[in-house]
């Protein structure tokens, strides 16, 4: 009874606008803490050093949040994410195949922007094909779709594994540098690319968020209401691929992070409108990543990696989603 009244109170008084404000505040506080806690070296150095890290977190959080949310809107469910469907593994496979076919010398000498553009272009192409084939050609039920996605991911990883064994150690080092960039060292070129991507996505959101709301109602409803569903789907796949390409090249694959933050956002936003959902998801992703890193650094003293924790918690969450059948 009391719980009901509390939720009722929350629903009536805490409008999505207020909730967003709170999320933004918490994000700012987290950032402030992260930047200022326990500074031992000079301020300049700390700001530079932590700033780089912070920037990576913010970009990755933004990318994973948006790509997962768009993907779920597109596929009309709350459990499949690009990472679970093997998109990240596909990106790494593409990178591996490029290194393998071009050879590391040429690959390393290639212009960074051309290289990244090429990778993402191939990813867009491959993932559109995959998406078309899985979601449109074959009307599969949700569980088999997820299972196919998971196995596809394993399949891509295995192929990458075979090719990684076949390239020389120097090539492998080049590949590892590009496939698993660490949070510490952000590449200047990647930062420029990130800025472009974020700008491009922001424009996309401003111009299309209402269309996404309509798309979420289902294919036929969307077409009835005058949204060019086919075109929007194509555009969304491109956007998702670009985002996956960026987040994977920055930190490598993180399987369950998107699933966790998006589901939290659905729960906390109190609205189905994308203009609330998108910023909320991004804020939650930022808070999670930064506070997670903060706890690792100052409480656990780097005794583990953030990705391992996310994998563990996310895996359990995913299991509970499947078992309790709470899939929209």
């Amino acid at each position, binding site marked *: 009874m009391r719980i009901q009244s509390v939720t009722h109170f929350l629903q009536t008084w805490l409008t999505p606008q207020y909730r967003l404000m709170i999320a933004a505040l918490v994000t700012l506080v987290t950032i402030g803490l992260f930047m200022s806690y326990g500074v031992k070296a000079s301020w300049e150095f700390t700001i530079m050093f932590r700033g780089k890290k912070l920037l990576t977190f913010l970009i990755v959080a933004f990318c994973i949040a948006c790509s997962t949310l768009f993907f779920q809107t597109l596929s009309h469910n709350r459990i499949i994410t690009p990472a679970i469907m093997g998109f990240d593994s596909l990106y790494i496979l593409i990178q591996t195949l490029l290194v393998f076919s071009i050879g590391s010398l040429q690959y390393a000498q290639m212009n960074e922007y051309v290289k990244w553009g090429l990778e993402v272009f191939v990813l867009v192409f491959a993932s559109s094909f995959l998406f078309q084939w899985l979601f449109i050609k*074959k009307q599969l*039920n949700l*569980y088999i779709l997820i299972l196919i996605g998971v*196995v596809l991911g394993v*399949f891509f990883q295995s192929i990458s594994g*075979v090719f990684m064994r076949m390239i020389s150690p120097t090539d492998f080092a080049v590949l590892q540098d590009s496939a698993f960039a660490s949070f510490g060292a952000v590449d200047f070129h990647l930062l420029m690319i990130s800025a472009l991507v974020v700008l491009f996505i922001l424009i996309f959101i401003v111009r299309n968020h209402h269309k996404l709301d309509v798309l979420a109602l289902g294919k036929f409803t969307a077409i009835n209401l005058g949204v060019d569903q086919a075109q929007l789907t194509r555009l969304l796949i491109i956007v998702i691929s670009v985002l996956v390409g960026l987040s994977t090249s920055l930190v490598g694959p993180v399987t369950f992070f998107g699933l966790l933050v998006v589901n939290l956002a659905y729960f906390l936003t109190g609205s189905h409108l994308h203009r609330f959902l998108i910023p909320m998801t991004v804020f939650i992703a930022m808070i999670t990543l930064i506070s997670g890193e903060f706890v690792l650094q100052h409480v656990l003293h780097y005794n583990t990696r953030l990705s*391992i*924790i996310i994998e563990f918690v996310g895996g359990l969450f*995913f299991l509970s989603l499947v078992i309790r059948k709470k899939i929209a």
Partner: protein
Amino acid sequence: MKKISFSIVMLVIMLSIISIFVGVQHLHFSAESFDLVLLSRLPRTLALILAGVSLSVAGVIMQQLARNKFVEPTTTGTVESATLGMLLMLIFYPDASVIYKLIVACITSIIGTGFFLLLLRKVPLRSDVIVPLIGIMYAGVIGAVITFIAYRMDLLQSIWVWTQGDFSMILKGRYELLWFAGILSVVAYFTADKFTLAGLGKQVSTNLGLNYNGIFIWGLVIVSLITGVTVVNSGIIPFLGLVVPNIVSIVMGDNLRRSLPFVALVGAALVLFCDILARLINFPYEIPIGTVMGVIGSGLFLYLLLRRQ
């Protein structure tokens, strides 16, 4: 049927011969070559056959116990639980003999697999794809625990190298435990009928006079022992126990007493084939068989999933 069995037996023999002759050293009639075959080539080929046979049989038993076509030791947390046991032994008793490590690995994998099977009984909706899905995620969660511990103990790389299915280190005197797995597969064959019954479910098989819980635990022990032995000896060979029984089942149905020998033979053939491939792709260097099997196995798994529709 006779034709099929004859051709599969011939295939296994042919692959074994190729397997013995593939390698950097060319064989000819001399004492040196003879030693090489006895010490390295023959043990390797035997180890491959034993692993192929026993893992496929373990896959079939697992499928009967979980009443699902898409499970096998790598999709039920069995392998991860065994790995966790080995890791704990590496941390607490690094000097223990292989037998002790094996025993602990088997105990943890029995616990881990048993927990998974109990979890399955709790799932109300038993669509046949949900079971492997839960299994893969469950294995992933245990995998995260393994990574967590290994990372803290700085054993990440050794765990990684050591769980990769790889037969390049097999020599005479370093694979004999696999015979144990082979013997277990033969023993399993004598109780094949009971597993077939158990696959009908608890109520039906109890009605037919089967001691369901007894056979359940028996199957669990066999699967865990086989998995433990192969993980300790050669590392993980993913999806083998999943694809082989399915292929055999498509051809000849689900009466285990009839199909189990075929499962064993096809499993041996597939592992031999993958190993030859793994040795030839990048000759003279080797690719671990686990990686090659990962590609072929997950590819076949995808085919099986899409074929269902």
